[in-house]
């Protein structure tokens, strides 16, 4: 047995197997340091605090895109509901942020009374403050744990995880695949958002949760500093998330899920319980999405049910497709590129184009441009932006006369594959 081929079979250290891992983590670290140095809070103040927040939020979107790539690009499950998990993560942390900060405000305002306020008075005060907008003055049961940061942080992981586990179990057990599964996930996120829109959902209806940028007890710390903290936290989460995803996809587990993506029936005949693998990936990525959301919304400052609208999850799939499905850095690049570009266009910074007879205002036309780019990428550059790296490494697509790499709906297409 030759050294060389034995090495090819046995598992090598992650970084050797995945050279892009080191490059990615290096770039991420460099980016974080650079932003910190240029920030108002910790550095020379070249970058505004609001832009630091935009960058921090972008890192969170990269994390949820990573999750999407794992579930769709690697396992072939085109979930169009992952932004629901992202939103749930945001709501879970938002409840604590809102509760704890309102509690401080109420205690302060009651401090001047002759008698020290009772616990009931404080609780009522908080409830009136938070739920006044929806005409309620009592805590709905869903807020039972909102006083505890630990419990709400647990909820960030457990609620998306359990929802995905139950939903996935029902769907995969009945062998729902392909388009039907996508529709089902859209229905899930739509139902959730419609439910949250109701005033009696207990989560303030269409007002959502707000003021999330203010960290309870840290009122004196300026946003310029808080924004950099969140950037660090987001970068750390993205780095760890990337590491976890690489660990999953690089080994035999990755081999199994890619096999499921291309031909799940064949995987079953090898004795693998396909449903269990799908459920694992679906749940794991839902948790990743939840964590990403929990870091995103404190930087956004506000979350409302519109964030969970079905279109959000479709955008997520578009980012991953534009970045390049089935390669982790592709998802990250796609999410960063498209969401930053989107911020630029919709923020009114992009100069309008005057055609004489018509003026293209990018605020309105950006979505059209995005849609067209999506179509163009799908048709002409299926490897997405990530495919550019194949030009450097001189990797080619196989010549299969148009045949996909497997019979399943999620299977890689000829032009997405590498020889």
């Amino acid at each position, binding site marked *: 047995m030759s050294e060389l081929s034995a090495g090819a*079979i*046995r598992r090598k250290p992650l970084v050797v197997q995945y050279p892009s891992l080191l490059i990615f983590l290096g770039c991420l670290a460099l980016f974080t340091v650079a932003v910190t140095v240029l920030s108002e809070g910790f550095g020379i103040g070249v970058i505004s605090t609001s832009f630091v927040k935009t960058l921090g939020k972008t890192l969170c979107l990269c994390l949820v895109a990573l999750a999407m790539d794992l579930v769709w690009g690697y396992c072939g499950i085109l979930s169009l509901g992952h932004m629901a998990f992202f939103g749930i993560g945001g709501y879970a942390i938002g409840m604590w942020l809102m509760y704890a900060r309102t509690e401080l405000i109420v205690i302060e305002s009651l401090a001047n009374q002759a008698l020290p306020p009772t616990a009931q008075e404080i609780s009522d005060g908080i409830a009136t403050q938070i739920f006044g907008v929806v005409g309620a003055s009592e805590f709905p049961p869903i807020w039972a744990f909102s006083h505890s940061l630990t419990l709400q942080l647990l909820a960030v992981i457990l609620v998306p995880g359990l929802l995905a586990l139950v939903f996935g179990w029902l769907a995969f057990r009945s062998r729902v695949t392909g388009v039907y599964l996508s529709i089902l996930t859209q229905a899930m996120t739509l139902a959730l958002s419609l439910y949250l829109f109701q005033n009696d959902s207990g989560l303030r209806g269409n007002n959502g949760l707000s003021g999330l940028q203010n960290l309870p007890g840290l009122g004196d710390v300026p946003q310029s500093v808080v924004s950099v903290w969140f950037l660090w936290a987001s970068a750390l989460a993205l780095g760890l998330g990337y590491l976890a995803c690489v660990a999953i996809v690089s080994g035999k587990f990755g081999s*199994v899920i890619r096999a499921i993506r291309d031909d799940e029936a064949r995987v079953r005949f090898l004795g693998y*319980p396909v449903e269990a693998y799908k459920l694992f990936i679906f749940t794991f990525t839902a948790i990743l999405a939840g964590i990403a959301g929990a870091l995103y919304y404190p930087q956004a400052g506000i979350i409302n049910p519109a964030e969970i609208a079905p279109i959000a999850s479709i955008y997520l799939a578009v980012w991953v497709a534009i970045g390049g499905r089935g390669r982790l850095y592709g998802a990250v690049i796609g999410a960063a590129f498209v969401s930053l570009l989107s911020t630029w266009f919709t923020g009114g910074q992009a100069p309008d184009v005057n055609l004489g007879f018509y003026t293209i205002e990018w605020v309105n036309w950006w979505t059209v441009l995005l849609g067209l780019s999506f179509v163009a990428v799908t048709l002409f550059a299926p490897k997405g932006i990530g495919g550019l790296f194949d030009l450097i490494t001189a990797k080619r697509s*196989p010549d299969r006369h148009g045949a996909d790499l497997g019979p399943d709906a999620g299977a890689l297409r000829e032009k997405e594959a590498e020889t």
Partner: protein
Amino acid sequence: MSALLEVSGVSVSFDGFKAINNLSFQIGNQELRAVIGPNGAGKTTFMDIITGKTKPDEGRVVWGDKSQSLLAMSESKIAQAGVGRKFQRPTVFEDQSVSENLMLALKKSRNPFSVLRFKASAEDAVRVEELASEIGLSGALTRKAGELSHGQKQWLEIGMLLAQDPKLLLVDEPAAGMTPSEREHTTDLLVEAAKTRAVVVVEHDMEFVRRLDCKVTVLHEGSVLAEGSIDHVTSDDKVIEVYLGR
């Protein structure tokens, strides 16, 4: 000889068309069996039933010493119980390398959590190398399966079957698209495999079947038409009429 697999009185119809009609079949622990029959006789459907892909309308499929019914089991459970299958059209994982394909098939725990922790040991690597040389793909371990020729894919799939180390091997037209010398090699492999397990080979090519030198079951319109040695069945009038006499 106790039976490893016993199929009795099985029927399946698709939209009223009886693809399998009251079929009964038995195979012992270390037996090689050829199944022949004209196109549409129900050979592939027969394998679908054993492997859990198609649930029969009636009948029993009983497996192993403990006489388990396979009908209540999922495809993956049946495979784990020791039924391996090679498909009529070669189905390998085209986007993955030859060694990844073999490693996937290697007899190991199929549980997601143990797969997550799995690290190929030196023995595993050696086993994959052995299998690769057995199927003539030693030089192609790092190549993607999609780049292989039709015949090589057939080989790879046979290699995956051997890697699975099943108690019962179901092989659907293994020699299609192979050169005569490759066919000979396939026969040798199958005969060798049948020394330690049961092997059912579906094949059209009479020469191939003759070389297997084993008991032959002739299927026709979903049921057994004749069974016995190759000389016995080829001299059977009914068989000559429906199959050989064309």
